C-alpha cells in the first residue's frame, strides 16, 4: 500500500484515496461535433501504460480534492504528485 503525498494535506496512507484513471483526458468542448469513433476514443479508449503513467487520484477521506500523480505502473513507484491544472513536474 502506497504512501501518497496529497498536494494539500501532506503524506497520507493510500486507504484515504481513490484512483480516478488516466489523467489529462479533457472532456471534448463540443461532443456533438464528434463522430462516434472520436466519442468512443474519449469515452473508453485508454493508454493503460506499463511504465510511467499520468493519472488522477482524489483524497476521498481527506480534503476531497482531485490531483494528478505520475506513477510507474510496473513497480508502483510514485514519481510525483501535482495539482489539477498544474503542469506535470516531470516529462
Amino acid at each position, binding site marked *: 500500500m502506497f504512501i501518497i503525498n496529497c498536494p494539500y494535506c501532506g503524506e497520507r*496512507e493510500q486507504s484515504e484515496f481513490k484512483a480516478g484513471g488516466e489523467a489529462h483526458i479533457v472532456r471534448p468542448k463540443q461532443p*456533438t461535433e464528434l463522430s*462516434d469513433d472520436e*466519442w468512443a476514443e474519449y*469515452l473508453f479508449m485508454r493508454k493503460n501504460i506499463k511504465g510511467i503513467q499520468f493519472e488522477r487520484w482524489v483524497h476521498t477521506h481527506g480534503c476531497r480534492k*482531485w490531483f494528478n500523480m505520475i506513477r510507474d505502473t510496473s*513497480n508502483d513507484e510514485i514519481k510525483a504528485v501535482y495539482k*489539477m491544472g498544474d503542469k506535470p513536474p516531470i516529462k
Partner: protein
Amino acid sequence: MTKNLRVKTSKFIDETYRISFKFNGKTYYGFKGDTLASALLANDIHLVGRSFKYHRPRGIMTAGSEEPNAIVQLHHNTSRTEPNVRATEIEIYEGLEASSQNCWPSVNFDIGGINNFLSPVLPAGFYYKTFMWPASFWKKYEYFIRKSAGLGKSPTKPDPDVYEHKYIHCDVLIIGAGISGIIAAKTAAKNGFKTLLVEEKPYLGGSTIYQNSEHFKINNQISSSWLEKEINEIKKIKNLEIKIRTSVAAFYGYNYLLARENLTDHFPLEQRNNKTRHRLLKIRAKKVITATGSLERPLIFDNNDRPGILLSSAIEKYANFFGTACGEKNALFTNNDSAYETAISLYQKGINIEAVVDNREEIDSKLIKETEKNNIKVYKGYTVINTSGYKRINNITIMKLSKDGQKVIGPKISIKCDCLGISGGWTPAVHLFTQSGGKLKFREDDQVFIPNKYPLNQISIGSCNGDFTLDEILLNIIKTLKEFLNIKKIEYENLEVRSSFNKSKKNIWLLPSDKMIGKTKPFVDYQNDATAKDIKLALREGFRSIEHVKRYTTTGMGTDQGKLGNMHALGIISETSGSKMEELGTTTFRPPYTPLTFGTIVGRNVGEYFDIFRKTPIHEWHIENKAEFENVGQWKRAWYYPKEGESMHDAVQRESKAARDSAGILDASTLGKIDIQGTDSSEFLNRIYTNAWSKLAVGKCRYGLMLNEDGMVYDDGVTTRLDENHYIMTTTTGGAATVLGKLEDYLQTEWPELDVYLTSVTDHYATVSVCGPNSKKIISKVIPDLDFSDKNFPHMSFKNTKIGKIKCRIMRISFTGEHSYEINVQANYGKSVWEKCMKAGKEFNITPYGTETMHLLRAEKGFIIVGQDTDATMTPIDLQMNWIVSKKKYDFIGKRSLYRSDTIREDRKQLVGLLTENPDEVLEEGAQIVADINKSPVEMLGHVTSSYYSPNLKKSIALAVVRGGKNMMGHKLIIPMEKKQINVTVADPVFLDKENKRLNA
C-alpha cells in the same frame, strides 16, 4: 514406557514449574519454557505425524517455524481447535491437548501407509496422467483423493477469541532479535530513532543466547553472556519498543509490514476469555532492518525423512536451550563445521555421540580437533547413503565419497543410532527481503542466495545477509549501520571477537547413493513427499522453470513453504539441467512468511463491525413500533410495519391502501441531500441533469435525471431552488456518496471556472414525508401559521417555515402521486416532528409505511426506481422519459452518447407496464418476457423490473423493459416460468391517476 531424556538443567527451562499436557490422548509432563516439541523429545517421542502423500511416519525435524513434519491438531473438537500447528512453535501450557494429523486410525498404525507401497505408481503429477477413464468417474476418484488429502481438520464452531489491529508508525523497525537485531536496536534507539524491535520467539537473543562454547567470544566473554548484558541494557531504553512472540508475516512496498503479535496462545484455555488473542500490527517504518537469521539446510539422501532425523542445529538447541537430548545414541552428518558445535555441546551435556560423518576430507578446524579430542569418531570424506527404522531411525549406512563427490566407493559401514543430526550448511532467511521487492544474487563459494539490490530504506544484517560467522557478522553490522542510519560513531567499533568457525563446506545438493535413483527416496520437500527423483522426472518431462517444477512436483507448496527444501530443489534442477543457479532464480516467496490466522487479518471487522450501520434520527421510533428493516447500502431502512399476526403482504397492502385513502407517513431521511451554492449553480445543474434549470423560479422544485457520460441513467431526484444561487439537490439513498463524488470530479477537473460549492447535508436533516388526501389537514395542524392554499403553496414548491422556534423546510413534492409534503428539519428534532405528525394524524388514521409500500405506490404511478427499473443499459429515451431530455441544451453529461448508432435504435428495450390476464396473478420480479414461446432458441424480449398486487387498483401491476416495447401497447406477451406460462398485456406504465388529479386533491 517412555524414558526421560532431560539432561543438565537449562536456565531457560523452569523445572520447578511442571506442566501436564496430552498428546494423542496420553498425558505427559514438561516444564515452563518447553515447546510441545521439546517436551515430547524429553519424553523420547519422535513420531508425531504422517506425511501428506505417502503417509510415512514423520517426527520433529527442527526447533522453529520452518518445521515441515511435526504439525498437530490442537484441542480437537473444541471451539478453539486449530489444525496444522507446529509442535516446535507452540509453548506448552497446563491442559494443552494435541493430536497427530493425517492418519487413521492412529499415528502408529495408519491405513494410509499403504500409499508408501504404491509410491512407485504415484510419481510427481501422476494424477494428471490417470483417473480419466471412464470420463464420468472423475468425481468418484476425486472424492477419495480429497479425503486422503488435507492435513488437519477445519474448526466447525465459531471462534470464541477476539482479534485486534494496531497501526504503528516508527522510524526504525528491526525484524529479529538475535545478536544482530539487538545490536541494531540499541544503536538505532540510542541515536534517537523511534525504534521497534520484533522477535517471533518468546525470548531475545536468537541462537547466540544459548551458545556457551569457549570458541565464540566477544571482549573475552562467552558470546551468550556478552549478549545477555546487551539485552538487559536495551530493555531500559525509552524510545525502543520490544515485542516478543511477534512474527512479521508480510513486507510490502513503501515499508509497510504486517506482524502478528501473539498474546494468549501460551495461556491455559480458561485464562484466555475476553482477552485479545492476536494483535495484527500494521507497521509503517521509515527504515527497516531485517535480521531474520538463517535456516540450516538438511542433506538429501535415501530415506532422509525418518523420525529421529533432525537438523543438527535443532539438536544443539534442544540440548542447550531446552535441556533435553533427542536420543541416547546420536550421530551427526555434515558438510560444514557447524555440526561440531552441536557435537561439543552434546559432549558438554554428557550426551552420547556415536559418530560424526563429514563430507569433507581432512581440514584444519579447531572445532573438529576438539571433537576428536573428546574421543568422538569422525568419518571424513564419508556420506550417509541410507537409514533404517520405520517409526524411528535405528541405523545409518555410510560409504566413502569419491573425490569429485559424484559417487560412493569402498565398503559400507553401518552405525547404530536413534537420532541423526544433519547439517547442510546455512541458507539466509531472505523471504521478507524478496517480498519487499529486493533482488538476490547467488554466492558461488558457499552456494547461497544473498541480498543484492535493496529497495529504498531497508537493509539486511547478520546471517540473513550471508554473514555466518561471529566475526563477519559484527564487522559488517558496524559498517552497515553507520551508513544506513547515517551516524558518526558506534560503540561496537573496537569489539574483540573470537570465532573458531572454519567456513569450508562441501555442498552436494543430492548426495550419491549406491542404488540407482529410481530405487531411492531422497526427500526434498518432506511435508509434500516430493523427492529428488520427482524433480528429475519433472525435468525429464520438459518442465524447466523452477515455477513449473515446483507446481508439478508440489515442492515448496506445503505449510512450511519449502523453507528447508527449496534450495535443494533449485540445486538439483541446476545440476540436472546444467543451468546456472542465478539464472534459475528462486521461486517467489509469497506472503505470509508464516501462515496467518484469518481472524488475525480481519481483526474486529466481524459480526456487528463487519460493515458500518447507518441509522436515521427516527430509527428508534421504527424499532419501538416493530418495523422490519431492509438494508439499503449501509442504511437500515424501515421496510414495513407488521401489526400483530400480519404477514408482510398484509402489512404492505394495508399501508398502501391507507396512504391513498387517507394518510401515510414515511421516513425519507436517507435520501442524499447536497447543498449547492454559487453564482453558476444553475449552469452547473444544466450540465449534469438532462433537463433545463435556468428558468426554474426561486421556491420551486424540479425532478432531474442524471446520466453517465455513456448516456445511461445513473441517478435521479428532486432539486429545489432555495434562492437565486442556492439549490438543494436530493439523490437516491444508495447513490448519495457516488453522486457527490462525481459532481465534485466534474467541478474540480473539467469546470474549475464555475463558481459552485457542494456540501453534503444528508445527515443534517431528518425528512418526514406525509402523503395522502388528508396530508394537508395533518400538516397544517403541525404548522398552523403557514398558508397551505394551492395558490400560495402549489405542488412542486417549497417554504421556509418554523415549528415552534425550530426552522425547517417544507417541500410539496410527491413520489406516490398523492398530495404530499416533505418536512426537512434539523436531525435532532426529526423524531419529535415525526411524533407530532403521528399525533396530528391520529384522527385520520395516519399510517407509517416503509420502503416496500413506497415502491408499490410509486409503481402504481409508473415512477421508476433507478437500479431496480434501470440497469446500466437504460437511457432516458428507453424509459420513455423523452420529456425530461432537453432538446435545446447544447450539451449535458451523457448527451452525446444518446446519439450513437446503437442508442438511437428504435427497438431497444423500453420501459412499459404489464397487466396479467388473471388480475390476481402477481408476476415475479426478474421474470423474462417472450413473444413466441415455441421459437427456439427462445428470444427474450426483456424482463419484469417491478411487480406488485395493487390494493388500490385491485389488480396485479408490473413494470418491465421490453424490446421495442413503446410501440407494443396492447400486445399480448408471455412470461414463461418453470412450471407455467403467464399471459400478459403491454400497458401504459402509469396505472393510476394518469391526469394527476390526486396531487391537488
